[in-house]
């Protein structure tokens, strides 16, 4: 179908007048796609993929993005500070941990945004509570049972041909996609998944037994997903690059394959564990950051090769940063604010936000300078083009880091 410019404008106007529920950018894209005479499920549908990287355990922000000009940093961390000459300088004040060197090329090509001082008011230092706050986008004292992406997906449902809202890779749980009606497929190895799903048909039965209902839901999801994945993976192109064999490397390899196969989901979540570095931090943290940087670089190369890097947004998150002062076990305890990475082909690279002061602390911890929900607003408003969603009290403005 070929539309002339006028017809296209009319259609767009009509779409704007539709109720919010239908105002998913996918519908607009469909019109664009149709106008440009492209297949309905194709490149444009993949424009809005979000890849979340959970840094499980609480990543030490200060040793990730190092304030190498700040004497307070070196005073607080006599054992753990990264020596100035090893820091990979990004700005006159901040630089990468040496293990993040592979990311320098993304920084230089302006595909990597660093958002500093991300946190929230009245921080909670419990792993479980703080990750729950992050994943449900709640205020510190507010307990919510639905993940933030679950809420977004309920407010703005995906078209029915989507396999699921999200795919989980690795050991982490559904987190931001938990609760509510979001369908999430936990997937370690797609090939094996398909083979096993073959023996399971969908069953529906009304039941008041919540455990049973949960199992039946799972069966239905598997059946639906397997049917869909089958066709797509069969036709997926080869990635043509070697991924590192670390856990995060393997997860991002599967993620890249799924994206290359145009699997219609909105979010892929991967998890890297063991950031809870209470003791012996230096070697452990080095290894974690090294694995992360290698895996992310491979991911970007693979997707660039497929021509879909501009359709993907990668974002890290973690329950908290760590205490400014090191402890006696050569480690760091639970802290508050930390920097996070946003990368992708449409990212406007650079430094965003104010790095927190290392001297004006609160209970020995950094004061956050950007609410973590601003990252979510960026995804919702700037990446998906949806209207703002309210999380907790107050507005959290999107960050202008996508172009």
């Amino acid at each position: 179908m070929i539309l002339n410019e006028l017809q296209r404008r009319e259609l767009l106007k009509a779409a704007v007048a539709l109720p919010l529920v239908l105002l998913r950018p996918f519908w607009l894209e469909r019109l664009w796609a149709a106008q440009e005479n492209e297949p309905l499920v194709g490149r444009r549908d993949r424009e809005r993929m979000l890849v979340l990287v959970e840094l499980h355990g609480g990543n030490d922000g200060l040793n990730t993005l190092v304030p190498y000009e700040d004497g307070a940093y070196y005073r607080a961390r006599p054992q753990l500070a990264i020596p100035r000459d090893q820091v990979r300088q990004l700005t006159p004040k901040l630089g990468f941990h040496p293990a993040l060197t592979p990311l320098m090329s993304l920084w230089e090509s302006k595909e990597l945004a660093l958002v500093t001082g991300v946190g929230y008011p009245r921080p909670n230092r419990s792993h479980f509570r703080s990750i729950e706050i992050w994943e449900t986008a709640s205020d510190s004292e507010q307990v919510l049972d639905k993940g933030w992406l679950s809420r977004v997906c309920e407010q703005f449902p995906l078209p029915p041909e989507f396999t699921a809202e999200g795919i989980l890779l690795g050991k982490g749980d559904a987190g931001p996609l938990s609760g509510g009606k979001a369908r999430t497929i936990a997937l370690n190895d797609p090939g094996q998944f398909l083979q096993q799903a073959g023996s399971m048909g969908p069953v529906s039965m009304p039941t008041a037994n919540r455990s049973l209902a949960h199992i039946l839901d799972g069966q239905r999801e598997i059946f639906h997903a397997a049917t869909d994945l089958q066709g797509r993976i069969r036709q997926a192109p080869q990635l043509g690059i070697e991924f590192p064999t670390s856990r995060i490397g393997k997860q991002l390899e599967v993620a890249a394959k799924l994206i290359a196969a145009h699997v219609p989901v909105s979010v892929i979540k991967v998890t890297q564990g063991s950031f809870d570095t209470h003791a012996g931090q230096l070697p452990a943290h080095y290894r974690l950051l090294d694995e992360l940087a290698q895996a992310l670089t491979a991911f970007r190369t693979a997707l660039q090769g497929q021509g879909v890097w501009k359709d993907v947004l990668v974002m890290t998150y973690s329950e908290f940063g760590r205490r400014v002062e090191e402890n006696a076990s050569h480690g760091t305890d639970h802290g508050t604010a930390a920097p996070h990475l946003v990368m992708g082909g449409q990212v406007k690279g650079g430094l965003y936000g104010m790095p927190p002061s290392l001297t004006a602390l609160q209970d020995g911890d950094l004061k956050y300078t950007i609410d973590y929900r601003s990252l979510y607003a960026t995804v919702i408003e700037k990446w998906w083009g949806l209207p703002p969603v309210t999380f907790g009290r107050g507005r959290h403005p999107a960050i202008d880091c996508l172009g």
Partner: protein
Amino acid sequence: MGLMFDEARHFLSRTGFGGTPDEIRQLMRLDRGAAVAQALAIPTHKAQTPPPSWIDRLPPPANERKHWSEMDRKAFREARKEEGQELKVWWYRELLTTRSRLLERMTLLWHNHFTSSLQKVKWPPFLYQQNVLLRLQALGSFRTLLHAVAKNPAMLLYLDTQTSHREHPNENFARELFELFTLGEGHYTEQDIKQAARAFTGWHLDHRTGAFRVERRRHDEGRKEVFGKSGYFDGDDILSLTLEQPQVARYLARKLWREFISDEPDKAEVERLAGLFRQNNYDMASLLNALVLTPHFWAPENRGCLIKSPVELTVGTARLFNLPIEEPLQLVRCGRRLGQDLFDPPNVKGWPGGTRWITTATLLDRTQMLQRAIRGHETGHVRGQGMGDMNQTHGATWLAAEPIDIVQATLLPLGPVQPLAAGEERGQAVRQLVLDPVYQLR
């Protein structure tokens, strides 16, 4: 009055790993009180499976390790990995053969409460010793257990008490003590954690003896203020102060409710049980006795409302089908795949359990594991071909000998999602029942 078939089945599935029709019928001779008394009459609080040979070994001293080459280090890691597997196999053997099923269930519960992992502790003998402690005190006094766990080598290492110093107290243990072990979130302040952490400084595992000791030079002797009380508290004082909080009994009663009854604890009953628990000076056996005797435990709506953990699913299936397991390493691998790697919980909070056991991935793996088990592959030698040869293959004669309605009532806590067709061939019927979603419930 004796128990009904379904009641006895329910009791065995919640306090043990399920039962065969014979075991269920034997229990039907007893009433509720006698049934729980029998389950709690445990001859010895020690595992009967012979332990591995290395359980008393001490880790090599740090000054020796300093001189190791990369090769030495690698060999060391490989040896520990091997021991870790042996340890897991040892516990599975005990789970598969024990007669004190409630004792093992409670040991599993404590392993998921006072977590420690091989991954962090890196010395399997310490994890073995912790397991022995958890079993020994599993049904004793929570007070004794708490004080002992706090000084237990694996715990000292797992939550970093070992490296905590008065100059820089490490808060890891103090935080989890309040948040996960005794009170739950919202019943303490950050200040309580910081102060309590000071009291545990100097608590130390002496690597030369493998024993707990307080290292005076590292201990903070100063005044601390915790829960609004002030004094020159040491670690034991903090534990005692914590146990004075009425919230502890509530927290544990609720935890046991979720384990044994349902995931919706009854507020008034929890309050009553918590009161009893405090009166009985934190005696676990009395709490469990009172819990099982609540009407809620027996209520039909609470049957089949919980999801089997991977260990319950694999061990329960192996016991029920009398699978000939000569190498429990297969169960270890299977448990890990299904999301429960014994001695390696995912983090200090342990396995979240409940509906979290079931994801699309683990559901697929559960189905696959069961399919193999009833074919006789996954969990032991194949000696026959499929269910038709059940008697020779697995020795579970009841599957062929009992009427089909008894087989169904034994395998499933509720009616199946897909009812059996009349006159279904027995092997096929058993297969269908085991693969029914209801088999995942207890």
